[in-house]
């Protein structure tokens, strides 16, 4: 069990680290996909099967491809060689985060008791139980999430295409004598 955890942790950290350092954005997206799959592995390790499946389906399957589409539509893929990869004050940003990590997060973690895991034998959550829980006490929240998703869907479509009415009016040029004949 431990080897699996350390392996997956290593892959996750590697994926995330590469994502923020690579110059080529497409490579960055692929490394993030690696990160998401490592996380799915961790979820499986903790017996949250359904969550691992949803993580793979939602993140790798659609959000990853969404990113790729976004990159394809905004052509700046390689990042301008003449523009620095990092924003100007990147040094201070990095230091601030490390300070936050050391100063705040680690002490918090140390205070939480290192509980040992519950006995694994009888604890095998089936998807049916999750379904039941989703339906009776949390039925309302499922409805809200559904509304949120549809609103997000419509909003995304309007935001992405709405701003481009100029393109709708573009008519297909029948004959274009002055067309640059490259």
């Amino acid at each position: 069990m431990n080897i699996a955890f350390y392996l997956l942790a290593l892959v996750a950290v590697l994926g995330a680290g590469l994502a923020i350092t690579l110059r080529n954005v497409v490579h960055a997206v692929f490394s993030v996909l690696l990160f998401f799959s490592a996380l799915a592995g961790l979820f499986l390790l903790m017996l949250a099967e359904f969550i691992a499946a949803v993580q793979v389906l939602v993140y790798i399957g659609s959000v990853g491809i969404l990113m790729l589409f976004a990159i394809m539509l905004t052509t700046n893929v390689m990042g301008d060689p003449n523009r620095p990869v990092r924003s100007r004050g990147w040094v201070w940003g990095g230091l601030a985060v490390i300070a936050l990590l050391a100063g705040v997060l680690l002490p918090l973690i140390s205070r939480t008791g290192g509980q040992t895991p519950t006995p694994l034998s009888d604890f095998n959550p089936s998807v049916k139980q999750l379904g039941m829980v989703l339906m009776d006490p949390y039925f309302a929240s499922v409805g809200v999430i559904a509304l949120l998703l549809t609103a997000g869907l419509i909003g995304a479509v309007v935001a992405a295409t709405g701003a481009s009415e100029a393109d709708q009016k573009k008519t297909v040029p029948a004959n274009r004598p002055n067309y640059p004949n490259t």
Partner: protein
Amino acid sequence: MNNFFDLKLVELGRWIEAFFADFPSLKLVVHLLLCTLPLALSFMGAFAFTTWLERKGLARIQNRPGPNRVGIFGLLQPIADGIKMLIKEDIVPERSDKLFHFLAPIMLMIPALIGVGFLPLGDGLHALPLDSAIIFFFAISSLNTIAVFMAGWSSRNKYSLLGGMRAVAQMISYEIPLVLSAVAVIMIAGSLNAQEVVASQQISSWVGSGNILQEFFGRILGWNVFKPWGFAGFIFFFVAALAEANRSPFDLPEADSEIIAGHLTEYSGFKYAIFFMGEYISAFAIAGIGVTLFLGGWNGPVFSGLPWFVLKLFSLFAVMIWIRGTLPRLRVDQLMGYAWKFLFPLAILNIFLAGFYHFIERQWGTAIAMLAGWILGFGALQLAATALSRLNQSPIMRSKRVYQLVE
């Protein structure tokens, strides 16, 4: 006689593992190997066989004998192709993205082989006994979209770029009808576990009873395909599966008449063979899930179990080959319109239909439910289909053209 074959195989597995009883970690490794290795090898063998089957089938449809030079009926043709692919020089375009150009075929093989693991081959014969097997299958099968995009982008060639974009758009828009038509089955079967879905497709009352006839039909009439919502769901599922596996009427990405070989233009040699194999095995996986959900998995009259599953799998694949030999290709925008504006709403309607059927059956028994389902349910679906196609001014609605013959 039922699932005699599967029990024997499971026993064989136990028997082999018994040898390593005293080293537990080695036993675990052997167990893992036993689960995955035979499955992978058998499906690669099945891939070799289907390439031969496809070439022979297509040839016979086109009134020509098909490969008959290598081996007796051309049976060694796949091996000959394999060797040819190995010998062919593997050209990597100079300006391409070397790493991802190399990774793409592997990225396509991973979801194909994992997807095959979820299939319930027999009564207890499954590689990955996950509780949420069906959802995991759809999640994994969405991975090959990324592999196709990787291939398209990394070979830096405008044809493969066009092909890559088309493939990604097509796969995403057909994933939703695929999942929705499966949702109807999962809702009725009541569980995501593949084995339980298959078990739900037997008429349990008949199977238990002694007399031969009921025993015989009990295992067939229970299949979801004979239920109204099951039949409609199977059509949507099959059409979406064709699109998801880039098979015939939807093989846009490798539309050789338009953009040569789509995202596979820059691949040659063994990488092309792996792509080819990946595509076939993912087609097998989706066909397998189709068989599990709609055609009653390993349920079959006499010796139900692995033989029945394999028989149904290959017959479904034969239908895919048959369609490939007949139908021309759809255009990109028609393809998208068909998925979003036709299959998607109908799949949702089908879920309501399934629910409706389920409650009638619980209320007044299956006979009335069958009746109501087939007449009302199918009528509603038919009505919705005609309404939708009129809404999208789809060509099917146009009147048949008449041509005058003039002096």
